[in-house]
């Protein structure tokens, strides 16, 4: 085995650690020693900057040539060529500058000393002196300290309330959070198809079929009220084979001939529970996969939800339409602190 005898000694000053070998030797690049290579690099840089100019021209031309149209396909070319133009315009400048830096600018590393960030003891002492002098000039410390300091701090702490109370107060409108607990369902409201709003007859609902339901009359509301009410009132209507349906105690008359209606808003964080699997009677929330068993009171069989979906008590009116018996008997959707109050 041979020993690298370059610079011989391995021991440091104290003999316990190696000595820093100093900066590695600078290796010249080809462009540093060969004027031809330098010339070539320069031409490459110029070519890259020229590419950028061509990209700019492409972008401007693409803007005038490709106009957006009525379909996704028609805007594809507009998007593509304008984007490619901007890409080339930017990339040309970027690569040109970097190539310039890497081939022609200095690459011989330099050394700069660092200085400890801490200010010197004298500076610190001087700073403290200055603050003391300032404190003295302010008059604090000659018997007036408590009241002056207390009043200025107190005033500054209270001042934000002048803004916070009225304007944070405004954020929530009427702050009537008990609205979360009620929906627009009431006795006799017909169950209607989502989104067109036509009422549903019990005879339309075949075994195994599923209906996305809104309350009749929802679509007559002004847009923003409609959105608020729809967010709470959407229901999923399913007809099961009455033999499969496990009627929940106390809810014997909430269903009609195997037809059950459950809130479509997940009791986890409020996504619409929209995926119904006919074979298993399972209802799946696509957001976080809470799974509810429609045949068994929409109880949770999997996932992060804890509570069953609230059931909408239904019956059939004289004309054969399915109607609600009442609003839900509990708040729909995700839990909140005062849900049961």
């Amino acid at each position, binding site marked *: *085995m041979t020993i*690298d005898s370059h610079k011989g000694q391995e021991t440091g000053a104290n003999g316990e650690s*190696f000595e820093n070998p100093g*900066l590695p030797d600078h290796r010249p690049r080809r462009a540093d020693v060969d004027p031809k290579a330098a010339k070539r690099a320069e031409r490459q840089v110029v070519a890259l900057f020229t590419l950028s100019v061509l990209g700019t021209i492409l972008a401007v031309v693409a803007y005038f040539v490709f106009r957006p149209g009525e379909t996704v396909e028609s805007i594809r070319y507009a*998007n593509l060529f304008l984007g490619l133009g901007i*890409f080339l315009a930017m990339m040309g400048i970027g690569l040109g500058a970097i190539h310039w830096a890497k081939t022609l600018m200095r690459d011989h590393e330099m050394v*700069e000393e*660092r200085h400890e960030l801490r200010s010197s003891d004298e500076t610190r002492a001087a700073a403290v002196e200055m603050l003391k002098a300032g404190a003295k000039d302010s008059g604090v410390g000659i018997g007036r300290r408590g009241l002056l300091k207390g009043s200025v701090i107190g005033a500054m702490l209270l001042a934000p309330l002048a803004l916070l109370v009225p304007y944070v107060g405004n954020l929530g409108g009427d702050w009537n959070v008990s609205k979360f607990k009620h929906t627009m369902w009431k006795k006799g409201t017909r169950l209607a198809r989502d989104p067109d709003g036509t009422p549903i007859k019990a005879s339309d609902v075949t075994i195994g079929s599923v209906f996305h339901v809104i309350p009749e009359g929802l679509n007559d509301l002004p847009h923003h009220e409609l959105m608020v009410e729809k967010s709470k009132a959407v229901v999923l209507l399913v007809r099961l084979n009455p033999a499969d349906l496990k009627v929940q105690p106390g809810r014997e008359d909430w269903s009609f001939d195997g037809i059950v209606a459950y809130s479509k808003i997940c009791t986890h964080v*409020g996504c619409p529970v929209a995926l119904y699997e006919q074979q298993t009677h399972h209802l799946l929330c696509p957001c976080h996969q809470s799974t509810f068993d429609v045949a068994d009171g929409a109880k949770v069989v999997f996932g992060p939800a804890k509570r069953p979906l609230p059931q909408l008590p239904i019956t059939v009116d004289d004309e054969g339409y399915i109607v609600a018996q009442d609003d839900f008997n509990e708040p729909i959707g995700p839990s909140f*602190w005062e849900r049961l109050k």
Partner: protein
Amino acid sequence: MTTTVTPPPANPRLAKVAGGTANWVDDRTNIGGFVKFFSRKLFPDHWSFMLGEVALYSFIVLLLSGVILTAFFVPSMEETHYEGAFASMHGVAMTKAFESTLYMSFDVPGGLLMRQIHHWAALIFTASIVTHMARIFFTGAFRKPREINWLVGFTLMLLSLAAGFTGYSLPDDVLSGNGLRIIDGVIKSIPFFGSYISYGLFGGEFPGVHLIPRMFTAHILLIPALILGLVAVHLFLVFLHKHTQYPGGGRTDKNVVGLPLFPVYTAKAGGFFFVVFGVIALLGALFQINPVWNYGPYDPSPVSAGTQPDWYMLFIDGALRAQPGWLFGLPFEWEIGGYTLSWNILIPAVILPGLFFTFLALYPWIEAWATGDRGERHVLDRPRNVPVRTGIGVALITFYVILVLEGSNDIVANLFHLSINDLTLLFRVLIFVGPVVAFIVTRRLCLGLQRKDRELVLHGHESGRIVRHENGEYIEVHTPLTEQERWVRVSYESIKPIEIEPEYNDRGVRRKGYKWDRFKQRLSRWYYEERIDPVTPEELRAAQEHGHH
């Protein structure tokens, strides 16, 4: 265009104009002082230092493209019926926010491109911040004096998530509306105040008419202003501290080795901005992102399978999916005195991200307790040389990645034809087991790599050359490391666990603060008990003599 190799001869008229302008400005601003301070400041070179640059440049692209988008976006939840160029949406009821998003996509030439550039830039912004943060973590660049800058960067990371989420929600499409509904559900789970925070945020019941204008102000004014201000602080501190450098010959904690800001980094970093811009433009040109016209306007009723938030929110979504509502018959929602406490939402969406982010924010101090080091550190660690830190980092990433995968569990299940329930059960276990295994394996790997370094320093590279001695013995010739190669492998400090004062002094009085010291000592032992010391010159000499036998 003519090009010359030698610098062009000085143009006396130009020089006079430049000198005159400089003189005029300097007389009024002392700009000479700034130029003297900044222009030849040295920066070390390494590819990993560019991750932060990517974040900065994608932020600039976000500002530029964002300004263009605000020219067309209408932040309003008022109802309208679509009559624009995109024929298949004619007559559909939607908010003006969604209508204007369609308008800028289909009626404004280049508008769709700008939307796509903005969205891609946002994804790259958050991704580069996270990878930049990982680089800082693994190389120990957060150590004194950079703890404050770690916190500034940490806050920027949180702000980038807020910027991303508020922007994602503005078009008011089905996906983003459901995202908001999830956030509303999470907020409502907060004890005491949840309902009121939700009510205040939405200006009434979900979705109301106030949210999009409010988020718009946050998205285009408040959050970018905070980001811009903190970026200024971040960069100011980088200049003040001078950049860290990787270990290497000639580099110490007391110097900085690199190339000057002007002209080298003006060209390299300035050029890199255009490269980042170019790549984002290419993504916007070639790859469709967030095609809201396929999702349709927000409606509280429909939702589609495979709904995912943007990648940076996936970990919270994954935690929400993994948390069971019931576990072995025990509910994760409690009723206490008639009030409802939803652990099934609080744990994954509030407590878990809270702990994760608090740990990240405090990490520089946690490690400083274990190290007991009070000096300034400007030379970076090679990750293998601090096995416990590297192990913690990989464990955190593993934890995060498991949550991200769980956040896309429906896609993963579909792709690999697995049962989504089995997959979720698996992830529920992996969330606890994965990070522990990752920590142990990573730490062992680091120690192994350190041993390999020692081996290399002591015995050199295998040359592949076999030599037969006169006595018939065969040996392989090893080439010793160069001084530079060796220095990288021996120049780290092997930190020993801290020693603490005994609990009782010689008069038998129990001293104050002993418990705290004891905790730090335990932490320190966990970090540094098992360690590999760097090769000493003594050992190298011994090995070389041994090699001469």
